[in-house]
């Protein structure tokens, strides 16, 4: 097993104003442009596959997101992925979806994750079971993403479970949520982000962005509400493989909005895959220029090599550190 160790060593202290000792929080609070990428868990009991993918991503990212049965399709669990990755020193963001587990299971997993060295957790409602490979499953949704955020914040800040029972050593966590500026009701979305921040979100990773003007309008409202000062916003991006793939994604993946112009650009290209990659690179460059955007989150289903190429080609790795001022408030947890 060869690992590219990139997380903050456990012996390092939690910095003042920080709530975790994780690399992602450190990078964001230092004002650098952050990069995260999604690791799609294997359908395999062999850990090597996970390590192979993580190695590629960790060279271009500050943290690797371990997805929790995304799209309601069964894969290795996010807790399992994080167990493997933290063991090898990788920086992870563990995703928790409310679809499959109730509050008892989730709180237990949060403690387990923190004990293993997971520093960041992303709170999600989760896709409905109907869109996945086992639509006959029972949807749980005991909590929703908002009450999940508050639950984890309570565990961290008040050192107790939802029941009020004490936790002897509180988990030190950087808490995140998802946001989708590209789905209705559009005018509510910025305020919904405010609600998530009030519930405990310190960073958000958004749904795929293919439409920069919508994002710009959203960010304008976000800045107006001062939310970019209270929460780090990482915008989701990803490469489209072809016009056909884009159409499929638009109709089948919940919450993904792809403008017609993007699809016709792919259709007109000689090499659609290359064009998809170029579109993604351009998106990262344009998004990184938007005021209030703290980073990008790259998602590409089982194409880790491509993600690495895209991030390198975008140039954001080279310019980071100089792009944004370093005096961002580190008041920490709100």
């Amino acid at each position, binding site marked *: 097993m060869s690992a590219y160790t990139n997380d903050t060593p456990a012996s390092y202290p939690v910095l003042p104003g920080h709530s975790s000792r994780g690399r992602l929080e450190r990078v964001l609070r230092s004002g650098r442009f952050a990069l995260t990428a999604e690791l799609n868990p294997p359908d395999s009991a062999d850990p090597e596959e996970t390590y192979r993918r993580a190695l590629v991503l960790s060279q271009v990212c500050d943290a690797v997101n371990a997805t929790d049965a995304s799209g309601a399709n069964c894969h290795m669990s996010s807790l399992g992925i994080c167990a493997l990755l933290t063991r090898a020193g990788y920086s992870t963001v563990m995703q928790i979806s409310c679809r499959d587990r109730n*509050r008892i299971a989730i709180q237990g997993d949060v403690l387990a994750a923190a004990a293993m060295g997971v520093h960041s957790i992303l709170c999600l409602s989760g896709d409905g079971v109907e869109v996945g490979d086992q639509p006959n499953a029972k949807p749980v949704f005991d909590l929703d993403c908002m009450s999940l955020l508050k639950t984890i914040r309570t565990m961290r800040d008040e050192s107790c479970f939802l029941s009020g029972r004490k936790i002897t050593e509180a988990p030190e966590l950087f808490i995140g949520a998802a946001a989708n500026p590209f789905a209705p009701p559009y005018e509510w979305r910025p305020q919904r982000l405010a609600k998530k921040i009030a519930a405990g979100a310190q960073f958000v990773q958004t749904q795929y962005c293919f439409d920069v003007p919508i994002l710009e309008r959203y960010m304008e409202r976000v800045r107006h509400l001062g939310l970019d000062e209270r929460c780090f916003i990482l915008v989701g991006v990803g490469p489209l493989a072809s016009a056909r793939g884009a159409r499929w994604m638009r109709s089948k993946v919940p919450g993904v909005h792809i403008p017609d112009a993007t699809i016709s650009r792919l259709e007109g290209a000689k090499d659609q895959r290359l064009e998809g990659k170029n579109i993604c690179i351009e998106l990262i460059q344009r998004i990184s220029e938007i005021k209030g955007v703290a980073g990008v989150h790259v998602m590409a289903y089982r194409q880790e090599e491509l993600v690495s190429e895209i991030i390198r080609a975008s140039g954001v790795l080279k310019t980071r550190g100089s792009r944004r001022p370093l005096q961002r408030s580190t008041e920490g947890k709100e």
Partner: protein
Amino acid sequence: MYVVRLWATRRAGALEAVYTVFLRIFQALDPLWRRIGHGRLEKPVAALEAWFKGALFDCRMCGHCILVATGMTCPMNCPKSLRNGPCGGVRPDGTCEVEPDMRCVWVEAWAGSRRMGDGEAIMKFQGPVDHRHQGSSSWLRLSREKMLAATAANGGEGRE
């Protein structure tokens, strides 16, 4: 019924006014409910509440009614039972990710809340449901809690 539910959201402003007055009267009558006995009243009131709110809002009797904070739209009709706003899967035409033939409960809730006196109530955090209250009357529970809060301490802390 779905059509009635949509109608109720369109009339959210008027319904909010009527429903709030009703709740206030119901709570003011708490001494009477107590004399009869909350336990004895639970079954008939829950049945009446289920019938009334079921007809108007497709109420699921979660026991934690928050209609006035959700644009007079019952959030338990959301296939993910979200109680704090829409998920990211809402389709561009405003329909539900899980049930494409249904308008997203939260798109409707938002529209309803814009027509209501207290449009900000929808921004309030809603904690997770206590599943033990499923099927019980939230009218009686609200009435009980309000009285308890009032008598416990004048100016004492209420629930969040």
